[in-house]
């Protein structure tokens, strides 16, 4: 392990499904330093989830590599964990909340397991719901349960695949604050994939803007807003507004590109 290397280096990643369709990813390249919060944004359907699945080794890229401190890795490694968008489908409906969380732990004795599960549940404020089943919880609570499962094994890198997309606006704000707080306290490196530009700028240290298909990195934008960030005061600073404007323009350019490309076919 070479500490001078980034915790994650996505090196010219390309991926296509089948031979006939245009590739989804084409030469996606960016790096993430340890402890950094990176957000990947892009027009919807540009292949953000595919990128995340390639990074998590749930899918093999056609070309390029994903390096962890300069090294390739095969199957999903133990230092990495992931929260999926759809909490409805990613939690085990036959396991209680605490057992769902314990699912993230391997080879530990019973007491230690229970202690770690309790810790994770406290971190997301679900300690009172440990014996309930996921389907007895609200959407936001379910996503907190999924979050607890992903941090219980104390990973080094947390991947978030649009984790706040399926909850209501108020819950989304609460979850954003909670995730930022947890990542900072655990000094987790976090990679967030989202289509929400404001969310990306608000949460991340760096925003990576992807193009439309085939996706490549259009621009990387450093976000130097001070932490801890606040939903009200941070979002009112000129710097925040400037960054949001910048990212928005970049994404909109990409969206317009799609519309223009498809226009002649539709007419």
């Amino acid at each position, binding site marked *: 392990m070479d500490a001078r290397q980034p915790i994650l280096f996505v090196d010219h990643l390309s991926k296509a499904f089948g031979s006939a369709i245009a590739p989804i990813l084409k030469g996606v390249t960016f790096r993430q330093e340890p402890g950094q919060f990176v957000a990947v944004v892009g027009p919807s359907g540009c292949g953000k989830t595919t990128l995340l699945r390639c990074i998590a080794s749930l899918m093999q890229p056609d070309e390029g590599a994903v390096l962890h401190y300069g090294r390739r890795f095969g199957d999903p490694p133990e230092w990495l964990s992931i929260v999926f968008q759809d909490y409805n489908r990613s939690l*085990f409906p036959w396991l209680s909340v605490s057992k769902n969380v314990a699912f993230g732990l391997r080879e530990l004795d019973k007491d230690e397991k229970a202690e770690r599960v309790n810790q994770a549940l406290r971190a997301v404020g679900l300690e009172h719901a440990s014996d309930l089943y996921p*389907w007895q919880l609200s959407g936001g609570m379910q996503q907190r349960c999924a979050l607890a499962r992903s941090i219980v094994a104390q990973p080094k890198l947390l991947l978030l695949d649009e984790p706040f997309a399926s909850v209501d606006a108020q819950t989304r704000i609460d979850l954003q604050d909670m995730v930022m707080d947890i990542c900072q306290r655990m000094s987790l490196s976090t990679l967030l994939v989202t289509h929400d530009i404001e969310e990306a700028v608000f949460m991340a240290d760096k925003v990576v803007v992807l193009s439309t298909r085939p996706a490549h990195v259009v621009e990387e934008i450093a976000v130097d807003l001070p932490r801890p960030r606040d939903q009200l005061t941070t979002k009112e600073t000129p710097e925040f507004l400037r960054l949001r404007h910048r990212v928005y323009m970049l994404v909109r350019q990409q969206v317009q590109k799609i519309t223009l490309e498809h226009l002649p076919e539709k007419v």
Partner: protein
Amino acid sequence: MIPNRAHIAPFAWQIGVTAGLLVLWQWVAVMHPAPYLPPLQNIALGYFRLLHGDLFWSAIVPSLYRLAVAFLAAVLLGSLAGIAIGSLRALEPWVRPVFEYLRFIPAVAILPASLLLFGATDKMRIFVIAFGSIFPVLLAAIDGARRVEPMLLDVARVNRLKVPKLLFCVVLPAALPSIFAGVRIALSIALVMMVISELIAADDGLGFYILRNQRLFLTANVYAGVLVIGTIGFGLTFALLSLEKRVLAWHRGWRGLLDPKGA
């Protein structure tokens, strides 16, 4: 809840109709005695004689033993094989055509063949019952295993689950609702095959008891035997449903059939 007319009425009707039919039977049996219509007390006598003493050991116990061994084997083998086949896509094209063909063979049709194969033994009867009841379980398990939510499999992969644990901790629970549906069908088939297998070259069991009493024109005992089989079927189905209700409580809750607060 205070019982009122609306609640009692349907219940009263059910009892009334049943009692009416029994009275009609008894009246006809007494007024016009015929071999095919024995009076109720004779049937009741036959029924209770089956539940006590020698007949219990020579008719009910052998039947239940065969049913239990064959049914449990069918459920166990059917779900294990089904989960393996459903999870390993590569296996399916090889075995699926065989199963799709075999499932259409009525288990009764293989009775003579299995008689040749195993002789008039318990083994033969158990084989026939298991053959008949394994296919609903097997096909339901294949189906259930194939339709496991892909995201749960991703969660399992990210958490580096080994294959045996993946099958038992993710695929099996996910397929369980489907498997239980297959098991319910299997139970009724198993009961049918249990009786039929005891009609051929048998010297004990409920099927044999019914057949022998029919040959001796002891009609009351024939009906008593049939009633005992009905009781067994009712009891086993009830037990299976109670088990399902316990094991799959999460499933009913998940599908929104349970009160979320009261589960």
